[in-house]
């Protein structure tokens, strides 16, 4: 348990309003958006500067408290759940955009800036920040970097990592690491920046981020294609890629997802169709025209049931916004939505859809599938009820078998959500014992005492890593 002295010290350094320890506050800062994982911290702090992060970390060190960084808690792998209690460092009050450098095309922000706020701020200056996680209205840049978030434009523009130029990071030993800068080329030494992106809060706490900006595309065209079966939609995606066209967005939704999203947005999505592809090509007007024509041709060739072109920018934007709500909308159907992040080489998309269908049948489950088909990143989501133990068991067996195939095909267990708590086993399967051992050694060199976000990405094999249960609260796993 944290001592009252430590609480007092935290209040002195961070201000009383930035230190919370009432059980109601602890209870609501022990979850993220991942179902079934919840654990209480002992104290939550909201630093407002890098110095305060450092101060909080020093106190945690002294008390031997595990430290878990967190943003808005939209994570989908349990990365910010404080499984061993300790101190949650919530960075949402560090939310200033420090600089938009129009000469170097960069922006520097504090870790708690909301992704969409950055997007809008740079757009106002005629610039473009491409990464756009589905939760962009809520998620923070720090969280995006830590989970290496992807999004709807990942196919053409890549993930968060591809835009990070510099990071400021507080390490557990109290040192401040800055890595990278505004130089476009920088090959000096080990690439800490890439190591920290996607490190899920296990190596250090990022407080400042400099990202690369690009000129926005001059033109874009949005298509909505309907299909009578998922496999054909998968073939369409493979064929478009094989024709050497890289749309900025190529999103898929199956029937269950279409219906849930339509229940929420009511924009006239086709409820009877088996699948829908949302495709967007962007760039120079001449290129957009050429690519749009080629995409349309392929859609006709594979026999898409219907092809529509968005008439206005608002219509296109409302379609993308609708797609972003897919996961939450699926939660209408069932109390629990168990989502995965399977990603396969794009030539395997159609096979993956077949496999999902087969396994849905085999395990007698309700599954909604949507995802970023263009980059092979799918989110088959089991719609279940966590109160039904048998159903939950079948859901896990479903994923277990699916991942076996995905890995055999050269895929990965996470395209954008990270490993966190939910996918440790799968990761070990993917990278093997050698891979896990190297990761552990890297972790050791940053965090010798193992205080930073313990229990995430891989098991430390530490007997102390057993979940910590507080009096009066039950904890679910």
């Amino acid at each position, binding site marked *: 348990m944290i001592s009252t002295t430590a609480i007092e010290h935290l209040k002195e350094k961070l201000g009383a309003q930035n230190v*919370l320890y*009432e*059980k*109601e*506050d602890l*209870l*609501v*800062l022990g*979850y*993220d*958006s991942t*179902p079934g994982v919840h654990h209480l911290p002992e104290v939550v702090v*909201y630093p407002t500067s890098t110095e305060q992060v450092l101060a909080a970390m020093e106190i945690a060190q002294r008390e031997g408290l595990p430290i878990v960084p967190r943003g*808005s*808690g*939209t994570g989908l792998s349990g990365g910010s759940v404080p499984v061993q209690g300790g101190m949650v460092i919530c960075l*949402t*009050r560090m939310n200033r955009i420090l600089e938009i450098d129009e000469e170097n095309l960069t922006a520097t922000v504090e870790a708690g800036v*909301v992704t969409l706020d950055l997007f809008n701020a740079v757009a106002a200056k005629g610039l473009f920040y491409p990464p756009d996680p589905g*939760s962009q*209205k*809520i998620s923070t840049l720090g969280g995006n970097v830590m989970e290496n978030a992807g999004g709807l434009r990942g196919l053409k523009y890549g993930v968060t990592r591809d835009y990070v130029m510099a990071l400021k990071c507080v390490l557990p030993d109290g040192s401040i690491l800055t890595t990278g800068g505004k130089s476009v080329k920088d090959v000096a030494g080990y690439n800490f920046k890439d190591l920290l992106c996607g490190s899920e809060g296990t190596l250090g706490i990022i407080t400042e981020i400099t990202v690369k900006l690009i000129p926005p595309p001059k033109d874009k065209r949005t298509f909505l294609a309907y299909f009578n079966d998922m496999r054909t939609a998968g073939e369409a995606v493979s064929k478009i890629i094989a024709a050497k066209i890289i749309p900025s967005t190529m999103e898929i939704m199956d029937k269950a997802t279409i219906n849930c*999203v339509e*229940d*929420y947005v009511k924009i006239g999505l086709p409820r009877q169709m088996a699948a829908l592809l949302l495709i967007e090509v962007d760039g120079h007007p001449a290129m957009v025209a050429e690519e749009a024509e080629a995409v349309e041709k392929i859609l006709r060739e594979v026999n898409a049931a219907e092809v529509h072109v968005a008439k206005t920018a608002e219509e296109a934007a409302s379609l993308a916004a609708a797609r972003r*709500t897919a*996961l*939450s*909308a699926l*939660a*209408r159907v069932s*109390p*629990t*939505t168990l989502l995965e992040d399977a990603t396969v080489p794009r030539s395997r998309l159609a096979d993956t859809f077949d496999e999902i269908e087969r396994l849905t049948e085999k395990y007698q489950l309700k599954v909604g599938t949507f995802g970023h088909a263009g980059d092979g990143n799918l989110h088959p989501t089991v719609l279940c009820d*966590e*109160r*039904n133990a048998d159903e939950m068991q079948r859901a896990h067996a479903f994923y277990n078998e699916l991942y076996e195939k995905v890995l055999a095909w050269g895929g990965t267990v996470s395209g954008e959500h990270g490993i966190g708590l939910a996918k440790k086993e799968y990761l070990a399967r993917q990278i093997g014992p050698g891979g896990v051992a190297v990761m552990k050694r890297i972790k050791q060199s940053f965090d010798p005492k193992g205080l930073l976000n313990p229990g995430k990405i891989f098991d430390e094999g530490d007997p102390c890593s057993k979940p910590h249960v507080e009096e*009066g*609260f*039950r904890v*679910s796993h």
Partner: protein
Amino acid sequence: MSRTDDKDLKGNFKPQDAPHYDDVLQCMRCGFCLPTCPTYALTGRERSSPRGRVALARAVAEQKLEFTQAVKEESFFCLDCRACTTACPSGVRAGEVMEICRSQSHAFYPLGTAGKAFREFILQKMLPSPEKLETSMLPTRLYQRLGIQWLVRHSKVLKLGPGWMEKAEGMLPELDKPLRTQLPERIEAKGKKRGKVGFFLGCVMTLMYPGVSRQTVRVLVHQGFEVITPRNTKCCGAPHLSEGDRQTARELALFNLDLFLDQDVDYIVTDCAGCGASLKEYEELLEGQAEHAKLAKFRSKIRDITEFLAEVGLRTEGLKPVNKTVTYHEPCHLCHAQGVSAQPRKLLKQIPGVELREMAEASWCCGSAATWGLKYSEESQKVLDRKLGNVRATGAEALVTANPGCHLQLAWGVREAGMPQQVLHLMELLGEATPD
């Protein structure tokens, strides 16, 4: 303790009027509600967000938490603006869960004798009785007529009382005679008759804004509707739900239900967004206490006046031009609770001469929220300032809204801030355009 399969787990809630367990389990914690919540914007504290509040309710149901003082505080700190309901893709209704928690609060933390007596006097004696309410406003009208108000406002004696008193006094508009007793129970339609509507005259409307509802009725009549205004209509129950008195709310609802169904009207129309929202939710409130068919029939007839006119189509011939630039503030109980958002704009655009200038965040709460604005006056001021900033940026001459609570708060805010905008109910504007 193991997980239970109980469909309607109550856990640490009192069994009477507990949130349905399925309703809290529905939240998958995606956080789409966070950027839409005024109290989360104020505090940045997860437990003051819809996601956090639902998690607290869930913890009480799962016996991870007692119904603590903090849960009570959060249930009343929630504005019940329902912006989170609009934003939630999963269909969670956090505002309603908190409304139910308010009634739980009274079960867990009974008021002291004096507080209880005051609350019961207001909720169970005054509000259910239109006559008592009218009589009680008499001294206030006298107070205004005799110029005491001017004296009081300028001498600052109210600074001595509790903070909310001064604000409440400052918010009072110039009061006219209540409309209820003046309005004929039945008024014939003008021109080609299009139907028969029941008019639900709200308490705040008849007492504070009789002029607005007078216009509403005039507009309805001019639009070709026979208007029935039952004189013994009782309060819709919204204040009771807001204060956590679900029992009195049910009694009032049962009375109004029969009263209006007996009138044999095609529609039941109101110009108070709060009443409209409450009437539309009688179906849930009276679940199991009245015949379902009756409730469904009642529900199908309720329309906000703007929703109604947009639906039946506004007769625009003969309307007089009203040359004004206006901006529109969406009442929470209209846009979020009733989903009526496009219709008022459609009407505004149909009034000749009116130029609509959209404000940023038109559907963000104004900070009034029944008695919230008085209980949390400092926080309310911050919410209001954000709204006034957006109003100011439009440079419009008039600020139009459609709910008396917003009307009071905005008129007060505009006056305090020294802004030039005239604050109007949409029906006042339409009334101005309607010839005699």
